């Protein structure tokens, strides 16, 4: 056994050296073309690269150290458990405050302004509180540890297979979004063509996954949060100072909106500065429908679907020592989450008045340049604002935060794909009962394969001017039906196994049909039959998927045979004993350590924020 482990380590090192050497070689070969540095969007100097190098030395060094140390990363997990709840809450948030969120929200902020806050105050907080108050006790008590596992035990093979395949596809597509954003930063820094940047970025992520391992990934996740806050906060403060505070920002935004030609389709300033009814965001003309779209589509289907079925985050909370602590994790996470929009949306809005390229874009122009080199897009807002406001030094910090976030995001997608592919698909349906080493090899091949495929899905993502449009559409395809099936299967014990997979399939198909019929949601594939575009179309597609899934599930259940109640213990709410779901100590804590009062406070604060903006 010892010899086996030793050989494995040697192989690891060889492979790692190979990957690093290949990366270094391509860097050196690419260098001559990078020399005309004046063309790059961002001019980084030696100090900026030093800051970047320190970060990766830290993360990789700790990964290697943790591997060698006898106590291993167990120390980390345990220290995580005994830390105050606010740190777990932060870890919970930073697993979500990824690249896509930062770039996507600033792009949205630049394009639509304040209504973007709905992604936080309607589209995240209520679902996080619901997760903490209602769902977490059930997860904790039923010992459900992943969505595919729940699907398999609750509905059997059909729903499991559908869920595993759609999950794997979704991870590949989202990894593409992360890779595209990573590639665009490499392009902005070095000026290489996007496809070269994508390949380099893919190599960097591969070596990061192989070198760092899990422990590095966990440290990276928490560290990245602090680095991002440390770079975005000065950016927002400097920007606000430059435009003359929030009033100055309002005045400038109004001025830009009024001077824009009608053809540019810029939303009037009143819509950009008030969160409700958010017509600009949804693309609906009717204010009432817009509110319904935001509350039902985004606030209920997309957001509850995301937070209640996203086990990457749920697992952070379940690592805590008691039900009470697990329940409080998302609730405490809700407090910092409330204020994240000020760090992500404001840079976008500031870019829309301070950066001449973004102003030009917003007024209907098509300025050259951009992170992809194919013209400026809203996605580039944050990078341009960094270029215009941050001195070298802080610039390096900001680049480091973004790169760390994109790598962490993509690494998470790739390893999620890897697990589902190796164990949920390959082992269960293709090759059963092989050795552990066999599945590890399959997993490694899957990692390389997924990274390779992500280069192509990144090219797909690069076709969208605002990655948020694309991402919400994908969530509509995959998360909305999953949420419908999950929630129905959890609360309705009669729901049958056939209904499980039939609902998932019909939900996803209906969302795709809506996206194809709308305007430009799927790029060239969309026919434009329904006059909806952008994120409004995504909300409608998600809502359709949810409703169709529920209707089909109920219909199919009526004509098929349910599972006996004895097989549903721990899987259906009513069949799970109450003592599995409650913490006896909860009552003895003061109010600020109990879940429900904290959740009430968070809800109250969100209502106040909604009234203010």
């Amino acid at each position, binding site marked *: 056994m010892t010899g086996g*482990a030793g050989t494995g380590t040697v192989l690891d090192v060889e492979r790692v050296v190979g990957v690093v050497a290949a990366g270094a070689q391509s860097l050196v070969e690419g260098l001559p073309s990078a020399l005309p540095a004046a063309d790059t969007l961002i001019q980084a100097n030696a100090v900026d690269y030093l800051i970047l190098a320190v970060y990766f030395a830290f993360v990789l060094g*700790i990964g290697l150290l*943790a591997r060698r140390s006898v106590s291993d990363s167990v120390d980390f997990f345990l220290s995580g458990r005994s830390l105050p709840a606010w740190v777990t809450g932060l870890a919970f948030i930073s697993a979500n405050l990824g690249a896509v969120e930062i770039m996507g929200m600033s792009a949205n902020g630049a394009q639509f302004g304040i209504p973007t806050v709905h992604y936080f105050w309607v589209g995240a907080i209520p679902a996080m509180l619901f997760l903490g108050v209602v769902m977490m006790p059930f997860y904790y008590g039923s010992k459900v540890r992943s969505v595919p596992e729940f699907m398999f035990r609750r509905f059997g093979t059909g729903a499991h297979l559908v869920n595993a395949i759609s999950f794997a596809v979704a991870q590949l597509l989202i990894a593409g979004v992360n890779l595209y954003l990573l590639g665009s930063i490499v392009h902005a820094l070095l000026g290489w063509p996007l496809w070269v940047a994508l390949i380099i970025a893919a190599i960097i992520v591969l070596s990061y996954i192989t070198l760092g391992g899990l422990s590095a990934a966990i440290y990276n996740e*928490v560290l990245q949060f602090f680095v991002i806050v440390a770079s975005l906060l*000065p950016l927002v403060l400097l920007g606000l100072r430059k435009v003359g505070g929030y009033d100055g920002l309002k005045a400038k935004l109004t001025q830009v909106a009024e001077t824009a030609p009608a053809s540019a389709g810029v939303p009037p300033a009143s819509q950009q500065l008030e969160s409700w009814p958010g017509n600009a965001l949804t693309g609906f003309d009717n204010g009432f429908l817009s509110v319904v779209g935001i509350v039902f589509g985004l606030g209920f289907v997309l957001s509850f679907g995301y937070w209640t079925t996203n086990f990457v985050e749920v697992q952070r909370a379940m690592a805590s020592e008691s039900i009470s602590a697990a329940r409080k994790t998302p609730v405490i996470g809700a407090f910092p989450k409330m204020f994240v929009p000020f760090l992500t949306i404001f840079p976008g809005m500031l870019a829309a008045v301070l950066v001449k390229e973004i102003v030009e874009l917003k007024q209907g122009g098509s300025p050259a340049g951009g992170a992809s080199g194919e013209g400026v897009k809203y996605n580039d807002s944050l990078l341009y604002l960094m270029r215009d406001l941050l001195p070298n030094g802080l610039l390096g910090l900001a680049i480091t935060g973004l790169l760390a976030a994109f790598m962490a995001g993509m690494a998470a997608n790739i390893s999620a794909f890897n697990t589902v592919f190796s164990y949920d698909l390959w082992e269960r349906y293709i090759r059963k009962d092989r050795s552990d080493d066999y599945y590890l090899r399959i997993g490694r091949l899957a990692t390389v394969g997924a990274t390779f495929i992500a280069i192509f899905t990144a090219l797909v993502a690069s076709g969208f001017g605002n990655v948020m449009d694309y991402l919400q559409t994908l969530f509509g395809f995959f998360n909305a039906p999953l949420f419908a099936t999950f929630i129905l299967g959890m609360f309705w014990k009669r729901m049958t196994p056939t209904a499980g997979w039939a609902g998932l399939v019909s939900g996803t198909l209906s969302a795709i049909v809506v996206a194809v019929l709308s305007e430009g949601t799927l790029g060239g594939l969309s026919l434009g039959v329904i006059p909806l575009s952008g994120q409004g179309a995504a909300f409608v597609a998600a809502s359709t998927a949810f409703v169709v899934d529920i209707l089909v599930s109920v219909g199919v259940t009526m004509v098929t045979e349910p599972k006996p109640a004895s097989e549903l213990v721990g899987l259906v709410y009513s069949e799970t004993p109450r003592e599995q779901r409650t913490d006896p100590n909860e009552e003895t804590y003061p109010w600020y350590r109990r879940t429900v009062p904290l959740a009430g406070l968070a809800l109250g604060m969100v209502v106040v924020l909604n009234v203010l903006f």
Partner: protein
Amino acid sequence: MAETHKAGAFDIRNVIGGLLAIYGVILTLMGLFGDTETEKTGGVNANLWAGLALLVVGLGFIAWARIRPIVVPEHVEPVSDDPTRPAPRKKPRSGH
């Protein structure tokens, strides 16, 4: 009562604190001796202020970890495997 030791370098607060403090030093030095580029920042020495703030926060984390160290038991129950979703079993460590 199982034997215990301190988490030390693996305490996440030391990691956060160390990184932020290093960045604080780099940025403060940039603010003092580098090009402050005030035409970009609108007259503020952004590097200096951000650097000092990072230094304070970073040292704060390290101090916190010193004052209230985390104690880890020497023997920890291994994580139980999920039977429906088998992961590769962990190999026993070769004590090198």
